[in-house]
């Protein structure tokens, strides 16, 4: 059986990762920025799983488990912080958050 080469998956992951990174750098809305970080985490997951299949090693699968759990924990605290920012500022636009600089 002809398998799809691992490289294909890896390049897809790299594309996802870089799209996420670009989103972090250019989007204004804090929530969207946060979503882009999730995208990057998923790229890492995909990479783990691709290598896991190549080697027949479930370490990659377990890593993906843990990454999903970490993402959930981050989401809980992150969203709470976004709410706190909104409460104090009335906005979640990232380029308006620069009380502290220099």
């Amino acid at each position: 059986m002809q398998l799809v080469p691992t490289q294909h998956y890896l390049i897809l992951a790299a594309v996802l990762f870089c799209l996420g990174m670009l989103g972090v750098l250019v989007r204004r809305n804090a929530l969207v920025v946060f979503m882009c970080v999730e995208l990057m985490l998923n790229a890492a997951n995909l990479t783990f799983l691709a290598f896991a299949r190549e080697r027949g090693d479930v370490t990659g699968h377990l890593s993906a488990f843990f990454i999903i759990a970490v993402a959930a924990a981050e989401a809980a605290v992150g969203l709470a912080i976004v709410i706190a920012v909104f409460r104090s500022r009335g906005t979640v636009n990232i380029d308006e958050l620069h009380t502290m600089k220099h």
Partner: protein
Amino acid sequence: MIDCSDFQSFGQYFSTHGFTDTVTCFVQNPPFNTANIGNSLWMIIALPILGAFFCGVFGKFMGRSNTHLIASASVFGSFLLSVMVFWAVNPSSTVAPNPFGSTLRYAVGADYGTWFQAGDFRVNFGLLADHLSASMLMVITGVGFLIHLYSTSYMSHDKAYWRYFAYLNLFVAMMLTLVLADSLVLLFVGWEGVGMCSYLLIGFWYDDPAKAFAGRKAFITNRIGDFGFLVACFLLVLTMGAFTLQAKNNNFPGDGTGSSQVFKAGLSAKGPLSFAAIDAFTRALPSKADSNQVTLSTVIDNGPLKGFAYGAMVTVILLCFLLGAAGKSAQFPLYVWLPDAMAGPTPVSALIHAATMVTAGIYLFCRLSYLVVLSPTAMAVIAVTGGITALLAALIAFAQDDIKKILAYSTVSQLGFMFMAIGAGAFWAAFLHVVTHAFFKACLFLGAGSVMHGNAEETNIKKLGGLSKEMPVTWATFLISTLAITGMVPLSGFFSKDAILHALHTTTLEGYEHILHWVWYVGLATAACTAFYMMRLYVLTFHGTRAPDAKVPHAHESDWQMTLPLVVLAMLAIAAVAHGIPVMENANREGPLQTVMENYLHPVFQNAMRSIEATGFVTVEHEEGLPWGAWGMAWAIALAGGGLSIVLYRFVFKRDGQWSGPAEFIRSLAQHKFYVDELYELLVIRPVKFVSFIFFKIVDSLLIDTVAVRGTAWVTAQTGAALRYLQSGDAQSYAAIMTLGLMCALFYALFKVL
């Protein structure tokens, strides 16, 4: 050689032997057990620290007199202990522990165990007192106590007197640490500590922005020096480490001074930065090229310094130390902080900026004498630096009218003399000048303080005058000290300065044959200048008529607390002459007579002297008999400079610049346009002022103020501002810069793998 075996007490021995022998034996037989005194060395430092603690913490609540009592008593306690130590290091039976095999005689020491250790790099908390440090101890605690006593009156009106005494005690403790340290690390602790205290005391009256700038200047120049010091230490550790690996058996001759095992055992017991280790290193590193030994010209074959010769490294290390010493001891071009440091209280200037802290650089080179003599290049640089400093400062002193500023520049100038002596390998002469200078310069500063105290803080000498009758004690002591610094014959300054000039005249450095000769001329010129401006200061302050724009119509003499230190210091300035007369037989059993100081310090510098003989880097021509000719010339020069000054300022000028005369005849000549005054002004004062003004502009204003102080401030501020621009507060910019950093690192890494 005097036999003291039957000495029991002074009186008993005096009845049967002569006076000199009795004194010698008395000094060599302390009436207490010298064996364990090393274990008490820490108390000398601990006492002033305790004093500082009590004054600083409880001073506000204890009241004035209790604070004075604690501060002075702690220094006096240290002084008594120092006397005991001084006495204890004299019997030849005194031996300090030294794990490097050789015997360290005439020294007491104590090693309180490991301070810290990292692998083979070990630093012990060790104290050591030999003849050099014991003499320094006496100067620091003795002069320190007198200045404490003086300050009780001088600072009596100040609100923060408790803080002042706490700082002063702390300074004494730090200076004692510097002197007693037996390793460069502990010495550095004292080195930084005295700088810190000096910084605190310069800024003691801190309301004035100009004084704040002075503090910053002192700070930056001293940091440059500290940087040099630390780099020198690192290089020294590396060089010694490389040597330990590379050394051959022949480097450790079997004459009882040790084998390579003993050397390594000593290194692991004391650490590479202890003075004993550096001494052992220099003894094992001969200069003559020899294929069976590692020598100065051998190239290092391991470690980070691979490829450099040992001799080159020694030179670089010494130049780094010179940078450090120049910062602390106010040498060209880092001298500029010292005159500005006069912003502090006058007793502080006397103690820190004349007698003790500024001599730390000379002390350092004396300590490392065995290292210094291994590099004629470094010695030449040291001598030239000293020469430039001495002449430049003397020229600038011409143009000053502020009594403390003149004294400050004269201190810089005298420190330059001491560096010249180091450069000529005459360590004892440098140290003799340290001691005598400590006495007469402290006396001058305290006298200046007394003058200011009695004249409503007036510092401009053109607005003083005629004080000799109103302030008789101050006048007499000031006169003695002035004569001492100008180099009049029966006073100590003459002998110490002449010892330096003599050494310059008779010494030749290999490869730099004429340098010391030129420095000698500079020294002679400086001596003449010194005599001139010091007499000018003295005459304008104490003679003539009181200036019309003086602040108070009549000056008053100061309290006994202030005059007693003056008298004692003036007497010391006279008595120190005993050190400078060549009456002792040569410690090497041959050669001309030695001065008391040279003979006394012989155990400290004997290794350096042995190296000088072995290497041939330094040649000294010995003269038979006493150097009458040189003495005469030095004396004549001082007399000429001082005399010219007296004549001009006492008899020719009046202080308002109009000219008067001792006789109506001259006055009438003048009125007939016989413009001697203007001629003198045009020919002498103007050029000198101009030259010093140029130097002042170039070195002080341009080089230090503009380039070093403002320039570094400007560059760092600009760079800081540029970096702050990036710190825009925008999280996405931060992420972008992180990504950029990531990409650079990635490209570098992938470039490596290609």
